[in-house]
């Protein structure tokens, strides 16, 4: 069972969600609206630490800004990645204009910056635009650093 913590985009309530049951249509405990975890999640800076700490699966965070052209190029790629790999990875996005402090805290020097977290810590970082296959590679390359919940060839 892989659980993640995610803030509701409507009411900011932090929810604990079982990724194995995404098909059941998880809803926010605070406002009852659906939690759509198969797409990039807007994450308020103040919730970031809880979400990083509470993710049983790798968490890919996109630090972006609306006005940044390369960030806009990345958005559909990340959307597709989040959808195709729902349950294996959680994709979040932090608006660096709204939450500049979060960007500073994670030493983001340019946008877009993608940081992959696993087991509560940073395991990989990508600065600048990356292709869909690049995202898959990023996730796989960090495999060795991931939690041993799904070791390769264990079956």
């Amino acid at each position: 069972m892989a659980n993640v913590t995610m803030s509701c985009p409507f009411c900011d309530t932090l929810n604990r969600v079982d990724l194995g049951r995404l098909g059941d249509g998880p809803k926010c405990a605070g406002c009852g609206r659906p939690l759509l975890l198969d797409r990039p999640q807007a994450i308020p800076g103040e919730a970031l630490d809880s979400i990083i700490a509470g993710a049983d699966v790798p968490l890919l965070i996109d630090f972006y800004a609306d006005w940044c052209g390369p960030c806009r190029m990345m958005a559909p790629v990340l959307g597709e990645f989040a959808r195709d790999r729902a349950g294996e990875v959680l994709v979040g996005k932090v608006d660096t204009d709204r939450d500049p402090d979060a960007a500073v805290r994670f030493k983001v020097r340019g946008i877009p910056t993608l940081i992959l977290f696993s087991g509560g810590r940073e395991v990989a970082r990508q600065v600048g635009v990356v292709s869909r296959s690049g995202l898959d590679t990023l996730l796989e390359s960090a495999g060795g650093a991931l939690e041993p919940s799904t070791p390769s060839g264990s079956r």
Partner: protein
Amino acid sequence: MVEQTTRYGIATTVALPYKRALERTREELAKEGFGVLTEIDVAATLKKKLDVAFRPYMILGACNPPLAHRALTAERDIGLLLPCNVVVYAADEPGKSVVAAMDPIAALELTGNEQVRSLAQDVRTRLERVLAAIR
């Protein structure tokens, strides 16, 4: 560090997010006797008019009344170059901002008027102090 970043302006990059940089710029302008007469929120305007996203960017029209009065007395049409534009915008690096001011020496050089030129040096010195004090 305040630098001449273009032929027509001086600028500094500060380790402050945009909103904070904007507040600090207003405070420091006030200390040097500059009121802010106009404010153009460039990002909001472009969003509204063209529906495009632009980095947070504000143009402030700064005016020091006694200096403006002297300039206008020396040369009536100088109003074409007033007030002194100061811009604050989000830098490429998140959490940092750029504050820039029109270089009054470069701008007022256009007049070819010696009285105006000496005023320009005074304004530039004040604007340099404003930019240097923002942190």
